[in-house]
Each structure stands twice: as structure tokens, then as C-alpha cells.
């Protein structure tokens, strides 16, 4: 066969079409390499742990390489905002909108600036603790002390999940004895290490913590300076009921339920208790091709239907909570609106 100009053109066009075909086919799909940025810079925390479980499952199911990068909230939102190709996705929790509701400088409304997506799990571990040697052994003691004019210092990290429990405490004090809310004051600290240290230094009477990070401290003998005691777990009792019966460490699920509503009451309005579930969910660039969201939706539906991911999540003390894109959007929007009202009411 002779090589003619016509043959060359046809061959070139065929080769171009062959090379382009997979790209066209994949144009609507999740890229081969995906970066899952998270709103925490810690790889030791629940956001990384949960995101790694979901990323592993999606990688295996879709045959892609999804990698979790713990870059922190500010950088994660920025990275997500830069990338509309679907190469960068984000996983975070309720802090993504709470920080905006609390007016943290530089925070945006994620519902407006990004696309909020599927929920995957709840961490039921958000907790408040006191020193074992503290005169306050329960939330009832804490609120009664505030009503009696004692100053209660609560160590929190402002603008997030940690603060909303504090706001609820202030509100409960106000409902119980108007004016006593001024006796519950925030001590702004950094990470969990700072909160623990604030307690050991005698700078805080109550600290925000978690079942996962603080449970071992509750097992220490009473005379140990580091020993702590749970006084409140914010999760809904229905959520905690789904945790494994053996609980976490040496604390069983039944033990944990003693610190949650209704056995431990932090009232919202005198008739119902304040509760808060910390939920993890996807966030997407608002200009990204919605086919990618559909692909993640379908993949997660199949993954959760298979059931293996739930075992791994429960083993790490997460409560599986998959809601598809449409349901999650409705749920999270309603949740945000509810807590916006609560914060407006109690702030």
C-alpha cells in the first residue's frame, strides 16, 4: 500500500478519534486521580478517619485513586473553589456552616458558595467533661452552680461543633434561672490537647472533648490529676443506640447513654432537650459537572447496599448515615436552618 496524503489524513483522523474516544467517554466521569480535601489539618481526628474509610471504599468500587489530604478548613474550601473539574472534592462536617452562623471571620455560607452533597456518617462522640475531682459531677451540678452564682468556665474552640454545645449550656442556664447564663463563660482554646491542658491547669471547669479522645482519661483512678468524667454527650439517644453495645474502650453504650438526653438534660426551651449529631458530608465545587455528583451518588448507594463499609464505620465508632444527594441536601438545609434559629435564640 502506498502512503498517500489522503491515507495520512484518514489515518491521522482515525488516530485522533481513537485517542479522544476514552476522554469523551470519561468526560462526564470522576477523574482517575481524586484529591479529597478535608476541613481538618489533623490526621488523628474523626474527619480524617471517616474520610479515609469513605475514600478507600470509593477507590475500590470505582477503580480510581482517591487520596485524603488533611489541609484544614480554609485551605480545603479554597482548593475546592479552584477546581471545577472534579479532581478535588471535599469532606467536612457541620462546622462548615456553623462557623458562618457564628460569624467567624472569612467564613462563607457553604450552601451558597459550594454544593453540599451526600452525608456518610455521624460521630456520636461530641462530649463535655469535668475533672474527676471537680465539685461538679453532672450537668445538673453545673447548671445548679451557675444558678447559685458560681462562675463555670467551659473550654471550647470557638465557631464550631464545640461552641454549639456551649451555647446550649448557656441557653439551658437562662431557661432554668434567667441571668445565670452570664455565669457560664467560654475559655477559647485550640485543639483537644489545649482543652485537656486547660483542665489540668485549673483554667477550665468543663471542657469540650469526645468519647474517642477522652474515654481513656475517664478510666484513670480518682486521685490521678489527669482523670476526667463525662457529664454530657450531645448526640441524640437514637443515634447512640446505633453504636456497638460494647461502646468505646471500657465504657459501654449503656454507660454512654447516661450522659445523653433524656437521662442527662440540657434543655432547649424547658420542654425539649438540646441534641446535636455531628454529621460528615461531601462538598463539591458549585460549577462542577453534576454527572460527577450522580456518579458518587450511585457508587455510594451500591457501597452502602453491600454493607461492608458500615462494619468498618461502626468499628471506628461512627454511625453509618448515608443519604443520597437529594435527601442529604434537604436534610442538611433543614438542619442548618434549625441551628440558625437555635443560635439566634440562644446567642
Amino acid at each position, binding site marked *: 500500500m502506498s502512503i498517500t496524503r489522503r491515507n495520512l489524513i484518514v489515518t491521522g483522523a482515525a488516530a485522533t478519534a481513537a485517542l479522544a474516544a476514552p476522554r469523551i467517554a470519561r468526560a462526564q466521569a470522576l477523574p482517575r486521580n481524586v484529591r479529597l480535601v478535608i476541613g481538618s489539618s489533623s*490526621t488523628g*481526628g474523626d474527619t480524617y478517619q471517616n474520610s479515609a474509610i469513605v475514600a478507600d471504599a470509593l477507590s475500590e468500587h470505582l477503580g480510581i485513586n482517591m487520596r485524603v489530604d488533611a489541609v484544614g478548613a480554609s485551605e480545603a474550601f479554597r482548593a475546592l473553589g479552584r477546581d471545577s473539574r472534579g479532581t478535588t472534592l471535599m469532606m467536612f462536617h457541620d462546622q462548615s456552616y456553623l462557623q458562618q452562623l457564628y460569624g467567624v471571620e472569612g467564613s462563607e455560607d457553604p450552601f451558597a458558595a459550594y454544593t453540599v452533597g451526600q452525608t456518610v456518617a455521624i460521630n456520636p462522640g461530641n462530649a463535655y467533661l469535668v475533672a474527676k475531682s471537680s465539685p461538679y459531677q453532672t450537668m445538673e451540678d453545673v447548671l445548679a452552680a451557675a444558678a447559685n452564682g458560681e462562675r463555670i468556665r467551659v473550654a471550647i474552640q470557638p465557631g464550631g461543633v464545640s461552641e454549639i454545645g456551649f451555647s446550649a449550656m448557656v441557653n439551658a442556664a437562662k431557661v432554668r434561672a434567667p441571668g445565670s447564663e452570664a455565669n457560664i463563660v467560654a475559655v477559647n482554646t485550640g485543639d483537644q490537647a489545649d482543652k485537656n491542658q486547660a483542665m489540668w491547669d485549673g483554667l477550665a471547669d468543663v471542657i469540650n472533648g469526645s468519647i474517642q479522645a477522652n474515654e481513656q482519661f475517664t478510666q484513670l483512678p480518682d486521685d490521678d490529676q489527669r482523670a476526667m468524667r463525662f457529664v454530657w454527650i450531645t448526640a441524640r439517644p437514637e443515634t447512640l443506640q446505633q453504636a456497638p453495645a460494647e461502646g468505646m474502650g471500657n465504657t459501654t453504650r449503656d454507660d454512654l447513654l447516661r450522659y445523653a438526653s433524656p437521662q442527662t438534660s440540657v434543655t432547649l426551651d424547658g420542654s425539649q432537650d438540646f441534641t446535636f449529631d455531628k454529621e460528615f458530608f461531601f462538598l463539591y465545587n458549585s460549577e462542577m459537572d453534576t454527572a460527577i455528583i450522580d456518579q458518587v451518588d450511585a457508587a455510594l448507594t451500591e457501597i452502602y447496599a453491600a454493607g461492608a463499609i458500615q462494619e468498618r464505620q461502626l468499628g471506628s465508632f461512627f454511625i453509618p448515615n448515608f443519604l443520597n444527594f437529594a435527601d442529604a441536601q434537604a436534610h442538611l438545609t433543614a438542619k442548618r436552618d434549625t441551628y440558625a434559629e437555635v443560635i439566634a435564640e440562644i446567642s
Partner: protein
Amino acid sequence: MFEFITPLFCLLIVAGTFAGIVFGAIPGLTATMAVAVCLPLTYPLGLENGLALLLGLYVGGISGGLVPAILLGIPGTPSSITTTFDGFPMATAGEGEKALRIGIVSSLVGGLVSLAILFLFAPTLADFAIEFSYVEKFLIIFFALTVMAALSKDLLLGIFSGMLGIFISLIGQYDINNGGNGHIRLVPDGWDYYLDTGFSLLPVLIGLFGLTAILEQAEIGVPKGHSREDLKVGSESTFSFGIFRNQIGNLMRSSCIGTFVGILPGVGGSAASLLAYSNAKSFSRHPETFGKGEPAGIVASEAGNNGLTGGALVPLLSLGIPGDSTTAILIGAFTLQGIQVGPLFIGNNPDTWSAMIVAMLIANIAMFLLMYLAIRHLALVVTVPKHILFPVILMMCVVGAYTINYGIIFDVWTLLIFGLFGWLAVKLRLEVAPFIIGFILGPSAEIYFVKSLESFGDVSIFFTKSWIACVLWLLIIASLAGSLYFSRRAKSETAGE
């Protein structure tokens, strides 16, 4: 009891150590980054094998930083800054091999001493660590900042340079994750997008040490590389283990300082080598030789930063609180396996605890053997003609800066801005070493100072908080007095000449 010691376990440690050395040796890549990159691999490997890999990376990454610090004058990691002070002058004088051998032996001793302390005293030291509140941590940082005075050629200009470094380090957000209020300060209008978290440390570091040196060399005309004959390598090397006969006190003291700094969460690895170096200079009979190629300076710096490795694991394994940025990533290996790390960890997980101790031991030995055997070849880097070496270094610096925060081009601009700044600073007689110390320690100093005042409400707390605070004040005063004395002596000697 030692069932975890399998061929795979040992292989992962050696592979991790080797990869860590490579990460540490490339300016811009760090032990922290090496551990972060490999963290997801640990879930399928299981806890013991996963930890073997990560601990190898940790030890290798911290140690690898000494190679570019000595041979190129660019610290591979922030904790290698003090290694450049004496290592690079030695390499420039053709004694790079000797400097490397001193650094590697010191790294091994530092790592093993801290490992022994970790193994024997972890819970006790953790109890001691929680005695350090914001006040004591601020005083430790303040003590480390006094090194600025010790390193200054001109006391006033050195301190001014250090203060400038602190000022620039405060640009950006008062980090809410560290207890700040999230307020963005010192950022010009329109620059929020780039500077809301301030300038990243590593691009600043690489720019000041790497690019500045290249610009200086370019200004005077690119020199030829060392010829093979100029170098004291192989049988011509003046290294012998007898060098350490007079350094046993320095080695032990520096290793213990590194370990001690490691057990204090939030103080940071750079403070370990800075404090060790400052102490070595204070205890030396010839402090004037420091910064000019003094082997004791390398001993202190490397024993100090490797001493950190065992120390930083103390609060991690006894309190669940990481001691430095790398162990903060390391804790992810436990959480991925769903294992709690806290005060009961060692008692509840004796096998994992033993595996970690054995892995650290093997990693230190592997680090020593891998680096020691490669020294003769590494030392020849300085024979590469500078017109080839400098572009390669520049490319490595740019790639390193770009990858630090996973692809932020502003980090490359930061590298260039601070490279230029370093070049100009020398002309203005500003001093780069105090500047970078101020830049590194500034944010921690701010947080602990403000938190101390917020928590205790009165400046007098810095003097009355505890006996630890009193001891730290004595050390601070001694350090400042020593710096003043040596500065005056140097001035009078110069005047006498």
C-alpha cells in the same frame, strides 16, 4: 512477645528509613510530608507493620536533613538549620565527609538516647509534661529565642533581625485552631487570598538559605566546584571516632535537650536543635569557633533534632497528644485502625508498644548504616561544577516549595521573595539566622504569650507561676548574659587587632 518481628516488618523499616532520608535530603520535602504521603498505606499493612514503615520514615526524614545542610548550606528540614552553621563551612573547607560522619554518628546517639528515655520513663515524663502550661511553654520559646542573641554577629542588628522575623511570621490569621480569634492582620488590601495563613515556613527557609546563596554566588561570579583533590575524603578524611571523646557531655546534653523539647507538645522541633546548639556554645571553651566550622556545633544540632524523635512519642503514647508535627500525622495510623491512644495505651497494647520500640531501634541503626555507607559518594556533590549544581538546586527548591502545600504557586513566589530579601538583607547588614529563628518561633511565642495573659490576667504570672518558670528565667538570663559577654569580648578583640 516479639511475633511481630517478621521479614516484612524489618523490610518496611529499612525501606521507610531510606525513603525518609531521601525526603529529608531534598529541600522542601520533610519527614512530616513523608509520613503524610505514606499514611494511607498503613491501613492494609496492619498496625505493627504500618507503624514500622512510618517510624522508619520519621527517623530517616529527620536525619536526612543534615545532608543538604552540610553540603549545600540549605537545611533539608527546619530542625537542621543549626547544622548549616558549622557543617557548611566545613564542607566549604573540603571537610564535607568529616562533617557528615560527625552528623550521622550524633544523629544515631541522639535517636538512641531518646529511645531509651522513651522506653524507660514515658509515663513519668508525660506526667511532668502536663506541668507545662501556657506560661512555661512561652518561657521555653523565649529561651529558644535568646539563641538569636547568641548567633548574632552584631548584637543589636541580630536582635533587630530576629524581631523582624517575628513580625513577618505574624502576618495572616491569628489561628482559631490554636486558640486565636481568627482575625486576619498585617495583610495588605487585596492580599487576603494569598496571605490569610501567612507565609509558609519552608518556602521562606529554602528561599533564605538556598536562593540567597545562589544570588550571592552569581553576584561575585560563579565559582568552580571543588576539585576531587581539594576534598579530604576516604583515606584523607580527618574523621575519627576520637573526635567524640571530648563531645560525650555535648552529645548527652543535646540528646536530652532534644528529648525534653519533644515531650512538650506545641513547642516544635526547631527549638530542640536551637537550644542544644546554644547550650553547646555556652558550655564550649571556644565559643568563638561556633559558626565557622566547629564540629561540636554539628554534634549538638544533630543529637538535638534526633533526640526529638523519642521525646515526641512520649506525650503521643502516654496522653494521646502528639509532641510534634510528624507525630501529629503518625497518630492517624492508630485512628485508621480504630485504636484509641491515651493514658492507658501502653498498658492495653503491650505488643504495639514493643513493636514501636523495636521499630525505632532498627530504624536508627538502618539510618546509620544507610547514610554512613553512602557518605563517600554524597560528599562528592560539592565537586559538581557550580554552573550545573546551582540550576539543579534552584529547580529542587522551586519544586519543593510548590509541593509543600500540595501545589500553591504563591509558595514559589514566597521562595523568590525571601531569596531576594535574604540577598538584600546581607547588604543591609541584617542577619539571616536570627531572622529565621524569629520567623519560626514567632507564632508559638504569640499564642502562648497571649494565652498566658488571657488565662491568668497578669504579667506577673510569668515570674510567679511555678518553680519551672523560675528555672527557665534563670536559664534565659544566663543565656542573655553569656551573649552580651561574648559580644563585648569579640568587639574588644576586634578593636585590639
